[in-house]
């Protein structure tokens, strides 16, 4: 259905709200066991995906992590195929072999997601190498969390990208947590300063719940990368509302406080701008209901699918 937006803000708001309502619906559905897949929800982090993907072209290649519902949808992945995938159906994005952690939509440049932390970062670098060799216009984007910057392969990827001035954007969603471990317990460096040591210009966005601000910061970096000025790193501070994996809150677990959450929530446009929520939510809920019905009506994969596409 065509929805008229009066501004870029409204369009981005709609997309961010759509992702939040999808995941809140997953929270409602989860106890039914229709989704038999671990889910790492992006609730609270939608604005990073929406702001960043607005700065990208459809043909740009983006590589994600296990927490990728938001980026899959923001990059243009099909909602019905996502819900069907979460339910293990044949019509899912991975034909029932992917689940929540391995969504992919290569037709819109969402090049897959991996449950091994940091493991797709070099893939974005390699895709950028291919772009450089083949002379195509598109760029590549690696999306990862703060924890991924602790992996050796992240350092290897920064070095190679900088060495060959590859058209790749490193986009760090820093939610301050690796499962239940805080940054202070894990990192002896600052993420931007570290990347600068490899010669990458960096920028930071402290207001990671503000998709307009994310878009502004990422667009500047993307423009430079697209101009052939070499790789860039953008760090967006953000906040994960729910537990690492699953649908619950876990503020009573002792590793973070509800006050932190309330501070982020107080600045969240999806919470504050109730008039836009009221305007957009009905159409979004209708779309979600249709996607759910599609997933539910879809067939299970045929038995012989077990051994197709192996090698």
């Amino acid at each position, binding site marked *: 259905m065509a929805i008229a937006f009066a501004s870029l803000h409204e369009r981005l708001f709609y997309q961010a709200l759509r992702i939040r309502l999808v995941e809140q619906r997953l929270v409602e559905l989860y106890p039914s066991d229709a989704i038999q897949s671990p889910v790492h929800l992006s609730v609270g982090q939608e604005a990073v995906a929406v702001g960043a993907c607005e700065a990208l072209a459809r043909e740009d290649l983006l590589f994600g992590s296990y927490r990728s519902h938001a980026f899959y949808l923001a990059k243009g992945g099909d909602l019905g195929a996502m819900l069907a995938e979460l339910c293990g159906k044949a019509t*899912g994005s991975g034909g029932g072999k992917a689940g929540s952690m391995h969504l*992919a939509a290569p037709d819109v440049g969402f*090049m897959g997601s991996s449950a091994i932390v940091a*493991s797709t970062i*070099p*893939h974005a670098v390699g895709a950028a*190498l*291919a*772009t450089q*060799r083949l002379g195509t216009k598109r760029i590549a984007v690696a999306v990862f969390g703060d924890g991924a910057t602790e992996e050796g392969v992240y350092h290897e990827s920064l070095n190679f990208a900088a060495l060959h001035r590859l058209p790749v954007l490193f986009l760090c969603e820093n939610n301050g947590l690796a499962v239940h471990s805080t940054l202070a317990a894990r990192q002896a460096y600052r993420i931007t300063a570290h990347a600068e040591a490899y010669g990458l210009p960096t920028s930071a966005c402290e207001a990671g719940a503000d998709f307009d601000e994310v878009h502004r910061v990422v667009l500047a970096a993307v423009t430079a990368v697209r101009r052939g000025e070499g790789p860039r790193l953008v760090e967006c501070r953000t906040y994960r509302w729910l537990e690492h994996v699953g649908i619950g809150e876990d503020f009573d677990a002792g590793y973070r406080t509800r006050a932190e959450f309330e501070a982020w929530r107080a600045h969240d446009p999806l919470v504050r701008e109730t008039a836009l929520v009221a305007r957009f939510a009905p159409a979004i809920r209708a779309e979600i209901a249709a996607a759910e019905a599609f997933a539910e009506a879809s067939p299970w994969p045929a038995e012989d699918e077990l051994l197709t596409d192996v090698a």
Partner: protein
Amino acid sequence: MTGAAFDTVAEPGHRTLTYRDALRETMRDALARHPHVIILGQGVDDHKAIFGTTLGLADEFGRERVMDTPIAEEGMTGVAIGAALGGLYPIHTHIRVDFAMLAMNQIVNLMAKYRYMFGGRLTVPMLIRLVIGRGWGQGAQHSQSLQSMLAHVPGLRVVMPAHADVIVAGYPWLVARHDGPVISIEHRLLYDVEFRVGAETAPASPFFSRVARPGKHVTVVATSIMVLDALRAAEHLASTAGIQVEVVDLNCVSHPDAALVTESVVKTGKLLVLDTSWQAYGVCAEVCRLVCERRPDALSAPVVTMGMAPAPCPTGKTLEDRFYPNLRRLVAALARLATGHDDHGIPLPDDASQTDVYRRFRGPF
């Protein structure tokens, strides 16, 4: 060093070339014929050029296509995967199998899974070339033969070419026709060996096993350079005792031809498996599984397996010689298996007759 001759009888329509030259020729042809091919690895553009197999190619095709890399095995494997997803065909080299252990996350968790876990929507066409070291004190970390760890994982295809013709026909086929990841494990001591190949070789799939020498009394299933040892042992037993050994070159260790192996065992009733690696949980164990699941009744004697001693590889010469199977021990095992007793009276080659190849190898690498 002069290559040891192997299978080099000149015939019309054939030519002779070393394993190394076969590799260099296919690397060059891949670059010349396919603009999307790149070769990357530590030292691919230096004067040693992966034992000569990429010699001169950086000058001819440019260092953007024949790329030296940082010392970053996992990262560069990931870069190769991403490059494949982005439309290139990467050929990634490691001068020892051992170094690829640093890339196992990318190989096992990513490269092997990309096609399946995204429901066939993404493919990773690429070739990884690994080299097994042996001799001249290569030691614990320059000698490993880890094909079974790789072949164990669904999603990977693993070949171990024992003959230059597999390279000359197989590598071009992989680049032109195959859209998945393949790991080829080459043996350092094969590089100087000369082989006879067709003058005109059409690209052909390397995912096969084959009978390298027909026989009727005992079957040897062998991998990589062990195929050459098996052929020498077969020749010795034929000439000294009239024992006809059938040698099966397993070649594709991840997808071996189980029917071919079983058929041979049904014919001979006796099986010796000869691998470049350790016997436990490896090719030796797997070939036994293939036969036992199909025709255990065909075996008229217990299976014999031979491989590296169950220890890390030692460096000192006397221990290292003991670590690997040699021709004398192989012939003894085959004579015992074929005749059914120890006092078979068949003359064994002395230790000094161990192949010229191994004797002549003086390293350093």
